């Protein structure tokens, strides 16, 4: 009897703590909105967002919680782009004012904060999100309130909302070329390893279809929960399956555990190649380059990418955030998003969402990764695909690139073998 009541009490306390947590974040929000409410109320009457000499934009990333590891740096590069544009005179003669909100690695919070940015702060556009779950949580809000979201991270494709611009890679700008690259190198037996959520599962579905169509073989497919930290059994399974390559879609901290334990098991990149799609310069720094030397990654941008724009970008970033800081693909995509939005607003002569969206079609920009162009049809951007190898100093050196920007194809309509994948 006593035990039962204790258990009830435990559940009760947990619920109470959750409620408290909810209250906590509400308080936060109230705090931050009061600090910025004065200009918002004056702006509400006439044209949205643009009031006086400033135009408001929202930045919505996880600044706390498990995803903050990755998202804080994207926020930093977006703020840097805003600062640069402001220094050059702003957009349509107005200085950009960033309203920074914390998504707290919690998907409902992302939706709530997106609503707050759009309806209370009346921002002209929002830059934000990292995980597909956070994007899918925000999407209905942006469609309902006709807002504009710039999403800066590579993702699993199969989506195209009129209220979102996707500046990260879709699958045909990262995953599909990388599988082709592996097949060309004779790595036909592939072991698929991923975190257990929407991106790895969708990505692996595509990879399996591609391998089946092109003479490769999926020897095994394994998923581990997000935050999983023990990979000994997975590594034993990899040894048992004897693949040519491990295709790694693990996300977040699991990568650290996996690569440390892989090396401990006596497996180096010379014994077994891995290719990762969620490990960039920032993650390499956190894992320790000695565990990753020789392993492959697939992205559209590296800190070492050789363009004049990138030299400036890296230099400015280090000046702003310290000589130790590194730049990575999602950071670059966030930076590019701000510039693309500014260019679209200039071209439209207005900050109104519908006009900016129309004007954005076909806009070109010389980004650190090379020339990017907004595809008018699906609102993704043309990007150059790059396969890189991780070096002992933590930098990634390009081994192969697609030769030029690749047209985004989120629904994989141009691939015969992908028929049926996009129907679901």
């Amino acid at each position: 009897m006593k035990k039962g009541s204790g258990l009830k009490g435990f559940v009760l306390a947990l619920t109470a703590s959750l409620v408290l947590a909810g209250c906590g974040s509400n308080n936060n929000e109230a705090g931050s909105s009061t600090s910025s409410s004065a200009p918002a109320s004056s702006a509400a009457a006439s044209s949205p967002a643009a009031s006086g000499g400033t135009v408001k934009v929202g930045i919505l990333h996880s600044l706390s919680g498990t995803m903050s590891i990755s998202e804080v740096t994207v926020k930093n590069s977006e703020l840097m782009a805003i600062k640069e544009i402001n220094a050059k005179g702003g957009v349509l003669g107005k200085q950009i004012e960033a309203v920074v909100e914390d998504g707290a690695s919690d998907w409902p919070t992302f939706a709530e904060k997106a609503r707050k940015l759009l309806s209370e702060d009346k921002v002209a556009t929002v830059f934000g999100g990292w995980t597909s779950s956070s994007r899918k949580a925000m999407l209905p809000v942006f469609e309902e309130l006709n807002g504009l979201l710039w999403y800066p991270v590579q993702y699993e494709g199969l989506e195209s909302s009129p209220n979102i611009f996707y500046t990260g890679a879709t699958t045909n700008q990262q995953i599909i070329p990388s599988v082709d690259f592996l097949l060309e190198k004779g790595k036909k037996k592939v072991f698929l390893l991923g975190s257990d959520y929407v991106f790895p599962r969708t990505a692996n579905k595509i990879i399996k279809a591609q391998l089946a169509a092109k003479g490769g073989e999926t020897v095994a497919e394994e998923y581990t929960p997000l935050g999983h930290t023990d990979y000994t059994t997975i590594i034993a399974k990899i040894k048992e399956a004897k693949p040519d390559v491990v295709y790694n879609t693990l996300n977040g901290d699991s990568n650290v555990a996996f690569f440390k334990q892989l090396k401990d098991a006596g497996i180096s990149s010379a014994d077994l190649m891995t290719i990762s799609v969620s490990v960039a310069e920032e993650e390499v720094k956190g894992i320790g380059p000695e565990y990753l030397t020789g392993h492959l990654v697939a992205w559209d941008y590296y800190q070492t990418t050789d363009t004049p724009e990138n030299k400036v970008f890296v230099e400015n970033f280090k000046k702003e955030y310290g000589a130790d800081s590194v730049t990575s693909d999602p950071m670059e995509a966030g930076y590019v998003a701000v510039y693309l939005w500014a260019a679209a607003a200039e071209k439209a002569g207005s900050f109104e969402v519908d006009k900016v969206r129309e004007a954005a079609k076909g806009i070109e920009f010389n980004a650190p990764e090379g020339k990017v162009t907004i595809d008018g049809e699906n609102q993704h951007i043309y990007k150059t695909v790059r396969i890189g190898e991780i070096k002992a100093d933590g930098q990634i050196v390009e081994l192969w690139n697609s030769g030029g920007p690749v047209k985004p194809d989120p629904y994989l309509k141009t691939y015969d073998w992908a028929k049926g994948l996009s129907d679901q």
Partner: protein
Amino acid sequence: MEIWFSQIFNGLSVSSILLLIALGLAITFGLMRVINMAHGEFIMIGAYGAYMTQQIFKSTLPKSLFDAYFPVAILVSFVIAFAIGYLLEVTLIRFLYGRPLDSLLATWGVGLMLQQLARSIFGAPNVAVASPSWLNGGLTVFSGVVLPYKRLFIIALVALCLIGMYLYIYRSNAGRRMRAVMQNREMAACLGISTRRVDSFTFAIGSGIAGIAGCALTLIGPIGPSIGTYYIVDAFMVVVLGGVGKLLGTVAGALGIGVFNTLFEWWSDASLGKVLVFLCIVAFLQWKPMGMFAVRTRSLD
């Protein structure tokens, strides 16, 4: 055959890690009854302790001495976690004895604060800790079976901690006082034991051991502000399954969960393996609600 051997070793290794993260909790929760939700954060503090020691060694001492940083780091992690645990007990926990729900909420809040503090001090991204070169590589038993030195080291470290704790709790005067207070507080106080001091010290030791766990985990896992959240559930599972208040139970609980987790993961996959383990634990606790080793004293009623 090889695979069986290496899976048994993996099971043992996972058990040793579980035991390491649960040992501190076996004291703070098992003996002191504080539902310590901040336990994971003491592991995190230990991990950052290792990181700081490494940075200091890197910047001040010659390269040849670098490999010696790890034993020092274990000590540093223990001391830092011990100190913060002591501080926490003196300023907060001691007002909450006998109020499990309040202590649950309070320690959970403290955990969140410690996470944010780590984020402010060290930044949100993970940091890297280079393992000492004498722990790289592994012992080749026969072809195809490699026992990584780091895993062997962790098993040895756990054994050492366990022996140390056993000697402290059951063979030292301080430990005798501690057991006396935990078993019958009023009687112990009547006999002239300062229960206040014993409480603070006990909680601090539990926290310090969590610090050691954090330091050891830098060898095989990530080091970031939120790593505590990955281990806290497992730690509670081990203590509850083993039987609250029994050191031997904690050992048995860790062994059980570790071995079965590895086996289930081998037969199914990581997500399903975890679910199966949880199912087994729930079923077991239905059968034996007090865990594997129930303590039969009146003090727990």
